[in-house]
């Protein structure tokens, strides 16, 4: 019967007691005159009955201990490295300088001082842009954890003032305090508005810093923001085509516009690294670049 297709959903929903009174009446009327739908209902009811009562299973003995041990072996959850790329070369240079400075000085604490650190950063801009191998050579150093560039479009802001309120807005719910770092309300940092760091990084994170500075040319105007995933190629649950890839295939760049965002968020959530892929962050990340640490 041609109309039967529309009743399949109603038949299924009837098994779940999810019909309105009107739908119930409509379905009953149809069933009274349609033997094939009655047969379908009978079969689906049998399937439903066969699935009932299986109950919960207990995992093997010691499962929770093994999971906890594996988590402990990984250490505290890694934070996500976060950058935005701006078309302003100066702002990009400033970020590069900050990354290098953090690496060279061997500690984020060196970056949380007063505005007086800015000239030192400026001095490193040229080196950052002209000598990628320098950054590479430093990638094993430490202490740049999560860095989030301020939404400020000019170098002064990147280097300049701090606003704790804007930090929260730019980074979603995260704050330095959430990261276990005492809040320094009212103090100025070289990271400026919206930038903060948290857990001590490791080589992998610094390697990503380097990666963020050596991006391939990405298509202008075709992406709103981009996620960078390092590490081994993941098993993508859906077909999402990278807009670009690093020459050594170590990273892929995915356009994450509205249509792809949910998909990518699922992917990163499953891999435990979706912290900044949220509306609050993304809404201000026009033409930006977001680097996510995969593992």
């Amino acid at each position, binding site marked *: 019967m041609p109309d039967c297709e529309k009743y*399949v*959903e109603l*038949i*299924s*929903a009837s*098994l*779940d007691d*999810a019909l309105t009174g009107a739908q119930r009446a409509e379905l009953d009327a149809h069933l009274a005159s349609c033997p094939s739908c009655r047969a*379908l209902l*009978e*079969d*689906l009811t*049998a*399937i*439903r*009955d*066969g*699935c*009932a*009562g*299986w*109950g*919960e*299973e*207990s*995992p*093997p003995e010691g*499962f*929770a201990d*093994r*999971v*906890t041990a*594996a*988590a*402990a072996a*990984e250490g*505290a*959850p*890694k*934070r*996500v490295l976060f950058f935005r790329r701006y078309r302003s070369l100066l702002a990009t240079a400033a970020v590069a300088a900050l990354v290098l400075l953090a690496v060279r000085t061997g500690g984020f604490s060196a970056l949380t001082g007063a505005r007086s650190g800015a000239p030192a950063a400026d001095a490193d801009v040229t080196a950052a842009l002209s000598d990628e191998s320098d950054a590479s050579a430093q990638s094993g150093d430490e202490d740049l954890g999560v860095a989030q560039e301020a939404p400020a479009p000019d170098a002064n802001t990147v280097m300049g003032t701090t606003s704790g309120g804007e930090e929260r807005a730019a980074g*979603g719910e*995260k704050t330095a305090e*959430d*990261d*276990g770092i005492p809040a320094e309300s009212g103090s100025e940092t070289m990271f400026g508005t919206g930038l903060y760091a948290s857990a001590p990084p490791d080589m992998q994170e610094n390697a990503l810093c380097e990666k963020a500075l050596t991006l391939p040319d990405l298509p202008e105007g075709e992406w709103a923001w981009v996620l960078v995933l390092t590490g081994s190629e993941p*098993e993508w*649950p859906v077909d999402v085509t990278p807009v670009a890839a690093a020459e050594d295939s170590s990273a892929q760049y995915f356009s994450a516009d509205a249509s792809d965002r*949910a998909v990518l968020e*699922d*992917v990163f*959530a*499953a*891999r*435990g*690294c979706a*912290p*900044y892929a*949220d509306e609050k962050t993304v809404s201000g990340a026009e033409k930006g670049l977001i680097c996510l640490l995969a*593992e």
Partner: protein
Amino acid sequence: MHDEEGLVRLAKKGDSDAFAQLVRLHEKRVYTLALRMAGNPSDAEEVAQEAFLAAWRGLPAFRMDSSFSTWVYRLTSNACIDFLRREKKRAADVPLCGDGWDFTLPDDAPGPYEAAERRELRETIRRGMEALPPEQRQILALREFQDLSYEEIGAVLELEQGTVKSRIARARLRLREILTAEGNLFPVQSSKKT
């Protein structure tokens, strides 16, 4: 003693003891979902562990917009899908052994004849489930075995309830087609009808 929200807040800051408590609170549901989808205990353990570790890594970013339970379900569900796709690539022609499906009957099980009927029915369903595409197996497992409501499934899979409803219907229809094609759609039911 912390409630779940308190445990989550501690775990978000890297408290492994709090995380361990969360694992114990949810291990049965997570493992069961993994078992129903993956098909055998060893794979289910691997998938469940993968899901919990993904939670551990992702906790700092967990915004608590949904419950921890819903979030972990989502991670488990995604881990299962990834696993099934890997398995499909690795051994496309090798059917899952299915020895992990628990046919143990509850204490109030009927007599031997009815128990045998039920066992046969479950074996039929198990084979049918394994033949479903991963996404359909996922949504049916959440509905039929985990007994989640449309709303809960929508939260786990981030789907509208209307979409959940239609996908469940399609999955059920597909399962019926598979079982019919095998020629063994519920021999137990058939015998009852006659």
